[in-house]
């Protein structure tokens, strides 16, 4: 069995004199979720389209599981589920029919199809609409069907282009929950986004692209540590308001806490070492204080700081 992978070697794309992507060397491997970040026009969608053979590279090559997409799109894409540019399904088909089409084209065995289709429709919470016409669906419902279509053959790799863009807050939350769930199935998820909180919430690693150039690719913790003061940042949320004295007096002196900032009465941002072990020790110490800790997770703000800093450097 292959380890799922996406690789680009010197990948570049120009439209006339405009260089959309240049010299992109990236190897993403293993079961994880990688956020592909960048401002509008940075080259995210162009890169994903080259991975899906929707557009052709001007230079370099893209590979899925080691198979060149350009040379053998059929076999390269057989390993991947793709959702790029909010595509449309033939409007007169029902979700079940659309997924049957995908399953048949992908060679999912006939006997397996009903179970598989039901399973992915259930996963995206569209079972109740399984036999309605797709043409009547809202954008969010269509997006969920598209995600189901990308999952119907149990792919090793998922390529998602801003899957929650254009959806209402509930739709965004639902799509994120679906993507988060996919991490548990051992897939490699490569997801473009310009929503930093989404990437922090869903992804393990992050690649930042700007003006067609890859600025970095690393784990979230390493990125925030590398580009800030050497510390990772986590936000801790408490059930009760904190006494400022507790923050400066107690929390700030916990082992492993390098910095602390009170964001609001129930929330603090902590500067902590980037390693998982060290962060676990901080978490245990916070719990031991019995202050009513309810959440302890990587700070969106930290990634935002890095993002702004790196993008600004390119301006």
């Amino acid at each position: 069995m292959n380890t799922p992978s996406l690789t680009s070697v010197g990948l570049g794309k120009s439209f006339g004199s405009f260089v959309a992507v240049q010299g992109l060397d990236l190897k993403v491997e293993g079961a994880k979720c990688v956020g592909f970040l960048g401002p509008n026009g940075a080259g995210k969608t162009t890169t994903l389209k080259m991975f899906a053979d929707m557009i052709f590279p001007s230079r370099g090559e893209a590979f899925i599981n080691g198979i060149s997409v350009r040379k053998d799109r059929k076999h390269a894409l057989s390993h991947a589920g793709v959702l790029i540019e909010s595509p449309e399904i033939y409007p007169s088909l029902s979700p079940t029919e659309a997924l049957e089409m995908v399953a048949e084209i992908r060679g999912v065995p006939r006997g397996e199809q009903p179970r598989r289709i039901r399973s992915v429709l259930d996963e995206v919470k569209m079972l109740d609409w399984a036999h309605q016409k797709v043409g009547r669906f809202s954008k969010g419902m269509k997006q969920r069907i598209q995600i189901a279509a990308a999952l119907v053959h149990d792919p090793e790799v998922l390529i998602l282009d801003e899957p929650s863009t254009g959806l209402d807050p509930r739709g965004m939350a639902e799509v994120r929950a679906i993507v988060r769930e996919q991490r548990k199935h051992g897939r490699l998820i490569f997801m473009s986004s310009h929503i930093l909180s989404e990437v922090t919430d869903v992804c393990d690693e992050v690649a930042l692209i700007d003006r067609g150039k890859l600025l970095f690719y690393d784990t979230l913790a390493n990125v925030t540590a590398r580009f800030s003061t050497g510390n990772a940042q986590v936000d801790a949320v408490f059930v009760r308001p904190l006494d400022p004295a507790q923050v400066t007096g107690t929390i700030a002196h916990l082992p492993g806490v390098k910095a602390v900032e009170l964001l609001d009465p129930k929330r603090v941002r902590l500067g902590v070492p980037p390693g998982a072990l060290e962060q676990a020790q901080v978490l245990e110490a916070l719990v031991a204080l019995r202050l009513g800790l309810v959440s302890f997770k990587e700070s969106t703000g930290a990634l935002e700081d890095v993002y702004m800093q790196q993008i600004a450097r390119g301006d």
Partner: protein
Amino acid sequence: MAAPGVPAPTALGGLPSDEHQAFRLMRFQLRDYLRSRRFLLMIALTLAIAAIVTLVVAHFRGGLVSSPAAFYGSLWGGGVGVLIVFAGIIYGGDAIAGEFQNKTGYFLMGLPLKRGTIYQGKFLAAYLASVTAVVLYLAILLLNGIYYFGMNAFPWQLAASLLLALLYLGALLGTTFLFSSLFKTSAYAILVVAVLFLFGFSIAQVLVEDLVKIEPWFLLSYASPVIGNIFSNPYPSHISSGFGVTTYTATIPEAILIMIVYFALTTLAGYALFTREQFT
């Protein structure tokens, strides 16, 4: 690797052959066509043409019902050519352009299909959808024929003419698909194809025959009258002159050759264009 305890996924099943994939895509595309408004429009046009033909024959009779060959030569030969042009416009006009405009192409392009397979599947679906209109028109004419001629209503030329009509349909759809591959907007593609087939070819043929005074062997519209001419006995002469005007009629082999060449060249060109299209 997968998280501990979670088996890493492997794509289910093996990929079908290109031909199977084209057939499966065709099946679902055809299902979409048959449920669409364009199918209702095509059926309405077919019924309208068939109704006009039925009324004209019932009212005038005369030479039209002098023999089954005369009946089909006029009514089948005349009607089915128009019907095929409409089918080409309706099913082929935006077959490729619509994939860009409606974004359904972005869905198909995410699947493990060769680009040529998508083209084949869509072509087959458009062809079969068009054939339903041709068959419906034929069925109505046959009922008329049986009414006027009883069970002698089936001249041998009818089978040959049907084959020629199906060949013409292939050539015409090949051409509409080629033009459709040139555009990314459905309206432009349909407009260009409609103007070309409703007026362009006819005007070009008149100009070539009357002004340039050469045989228009390079025009598809020159070949299509063979569908009706095949009922004539004797077959119309290849060149006829009168009142200072020279008229050309494609012979049967010539018409078949023109249609085959049109089908082959336009399909290859459209196929080549589509395989180079980028979904920007």
